[in-house]
């Protein structure tokens, strides 16, 4: 039970936007080719290619490429953020978790949701007012451009690359299951489509791909729920009575189980989810695609509305599946109810779609899952490419002398480079346990990106020296904790016992980053640090009022 939960949790970690699945390893069996799904996916690709073509005509400046010229509205951006946040793993993983563990799945969803109000109250406005293309714009605002940007770009790339690998491997496995396509073909399809979207259409195309996918996901999930819930007369009482009668947890179905049995892991996980989200480069980048702080706030309002709604839909889907899928021999290997589910636990949502809506709905949901992976991978690639071209190339190497043309060209090469890297690593890691990579991505985001970012916005005393120590301290300690934990030290490297007892690094690595940043800023009395502290005054007024912030170019 605990093991299954741990793997479900890891899967869910991915769902901060992701997809992959240790739990999918259950059966690497290739499914028969699913033509409904493939046709619907091709329609999605045709539509998004049309948009990419249109977007490519509008992508001329660096601002267009990185942030869609700041011309995305709050509502559109809210959908795009929700799209980033509700991944294939959210739909498949959380439905599966509710199906096996009941109420625990719902607790998890709240943990995912609660970060958004905090981001709105404390970060959204300042992010928008201070940032332009990347979050390094904010951390290096009044500090040493070269050193701080390099540090921010490195930790961004660490997050992006590990996350990308996890996505690619998850994508390959999921597509093999859903579409009956070969793993390598799936990896190539995802990699190549992503390169086309991003290099040609930049942020405009990436955002619209995300918006379309979010609408499809909301529509598909809600429709499945309406069809399934109608079998219980839309009555939660009827649904729960039947579910508790057949589920192995019985009356404990709606009580907390083993999810948070260990408070330290729970707290570390909660911190990692909440603040890791606030440190993911591709999420932060979304705040620069809107015109001003007003729209940035609206983005979060809509995004959290959609996310909150969808989590509640998913929970009910999981409960419905307990009866509709869990009691139907058609969905079990060998037709034994209670045995192994065909395709593994993550297929529960898909089986439910088939049971209530036939092959059409199944195909639609499968196409949505594929589209989801593509959209998330594209966002990641764009965030990684901007760290390379905007931070490292244009600001550090060329010291701001590069023309827009040159910068865009570099970011296109960077996207292709990241795409190829993702394909190669995706194939290399096929058989590996990649679950730790997500932990690493979130750990580094929470322990390296977030502390320096929040301190640079809130604390006048932060100096270059403090930011560098805090940032590198966060990256290194998060990586070390993950490497020494069970998921790498034992599961990947094959050692006997883990040197670090917890799988989640955030609770330990975050304080290290904050303490380093504090101590090394406080003890920094160089002439530069004085100027940096003075420069906070102007930064503070801009952060509060948005005066001087980069506006919309359209």
């Amino acid at each position, binding site marked *: 039970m605990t093991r299954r939960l741990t793997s479900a949790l890891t899967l869910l970690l991915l769902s901060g936007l992701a997809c992959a699945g240790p739990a999918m390893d259950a059966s690497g069996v290739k499914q028969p080719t699913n033509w409904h799904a493939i046709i619907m996916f091709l329609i999605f690709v045709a539509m998004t290619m049309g948009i990419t073509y249109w977007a490519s005509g509008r992508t001329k400046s660096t601002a267009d490429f990185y942030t869609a010229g700041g011309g995305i509205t709050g509502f559109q951006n809210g959908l795009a953020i929700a799209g980033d946040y509700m991944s294939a793993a959210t739909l498949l993983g959380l439905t599966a978790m509710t199906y096996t563990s009941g*109420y625990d799945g*719902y*607790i998890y969803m*709240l*943990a995912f*949701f*609660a970060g*958004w*109000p*905090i981001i*709105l*109250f*404390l970060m959204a*406005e300042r992010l928008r007012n201070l940032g332009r293309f990347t979050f390094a714009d904010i951390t290096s605002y009044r500090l040493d451009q070269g050193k701080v940007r390099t540090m921010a770009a490195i930790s961004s790339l660490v997050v992006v690359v590990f996350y990308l690998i996890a996505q690619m491997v998850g994508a390959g496995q999921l597509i093999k299951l859903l579409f009956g396509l070969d793993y390598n073909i799936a990896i190539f399809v995802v990699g190549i489509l992503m390169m086309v979207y991003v290099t040609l259409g930049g942020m405009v195309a990436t955002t619209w791909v995300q918006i379309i996918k979010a609408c499809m996901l909301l529509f598909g999930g809600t429709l499945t729920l309406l069809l399934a819930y109608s079998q219980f007369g839309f009555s*939660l*009482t009827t649904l*729960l*009575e039947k579910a*508790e009668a057949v589920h192995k947890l019985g*009356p*404990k179905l*709606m*009580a*907390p*189980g083993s*999810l*948070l*049995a260990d*408070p330290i892991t*729970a*707290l570390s996980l*909660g911190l990692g989810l909440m603040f890791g989200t606030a440190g993911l480069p591709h999420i932060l980048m979304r705040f620069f695609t809107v015109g001003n*702080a*007003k729209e940035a*706030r*609206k983005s*979060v*309002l809509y995004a*959290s*509305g959609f996310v*909150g709604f969808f*989590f*509640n839909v998913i929970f009910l889907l999981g409960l419905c599946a307990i009866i509709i899928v869990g009691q139907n021999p058609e969905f079990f290997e060998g037709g034994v109810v209670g045995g192994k589910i065909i395709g593994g636990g993550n297929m529960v949502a898909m089986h439910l779609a088939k049971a209530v809506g036939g092959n059409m709905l199944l195909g639609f949901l499968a196409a949505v899952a594929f589209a989801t992976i593509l959209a998330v991978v594209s966002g990641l690639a764009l965030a990684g490419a901007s760290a390379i071209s905007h931070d490292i190339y244009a600001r550090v190497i060329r010291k701001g002398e590069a023309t827009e043309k040159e910068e865009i060209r570099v970011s296109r090469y960077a996207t292709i480079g990241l795409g190829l890297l993702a394909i190669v690593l995706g194939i290399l890691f096929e058989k590996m346990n990649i679950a730790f990579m997500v932990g690493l991505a979130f750990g580094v985001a929470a322990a390296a990106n977030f502390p320096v970012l929040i301190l640079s916005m809130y604390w006048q005393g932060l100096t270059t020296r403090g930011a560098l120590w805090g940032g590198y301290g966060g990256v290194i300690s998060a990586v070390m904790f993950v490497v020494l934990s069970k998921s790498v030290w034992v599961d990947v490297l094959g050692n006997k016992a883990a040197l670090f007892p917890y799988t989640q690094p955030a609770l330990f690595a975050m304080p290290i980053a904050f303490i380093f940043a504090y101590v090394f800023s406080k003890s920094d009395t160089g002439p530069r640090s004085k100027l940096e502290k003075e420069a906070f*005054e*102007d930064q503070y*007024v*801009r952060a*509060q*009022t*948005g*005066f*001087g912030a980069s506006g919309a170019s359209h």
Partner: protein
Amino acid sequence: MSSVIYERMRVNPKFQKLVHERGRFAWTLATIVLVLFYGFFMLVAFKPGLLGQPIAEGSMWAIGYTVELCMFVFFWLLTVVYVRRANGEFDDLTAELIKEAQKERL
């Protein structure tokens, strides 16, 4: 140049009012969310049995589910409250502040 304008804004009492009131408002809401959220997690960790109880005799609605559903709705309503006030009252104040700072230049 813009540094001069920033300086003018900083000394404007309206800026102090904006920063003070919006900051207090944002932190109050954030504290409500954090306290409820981690408080709920403590209940899950230390009093899981309580959350599994029905809200009333014979009801299928468990306390945990009901409380959590309310938290989903309540947290979202808090974002509505914040966005309305920040995009209305506070942004109007910001616009005045910027206008005054720019006017002084002439």
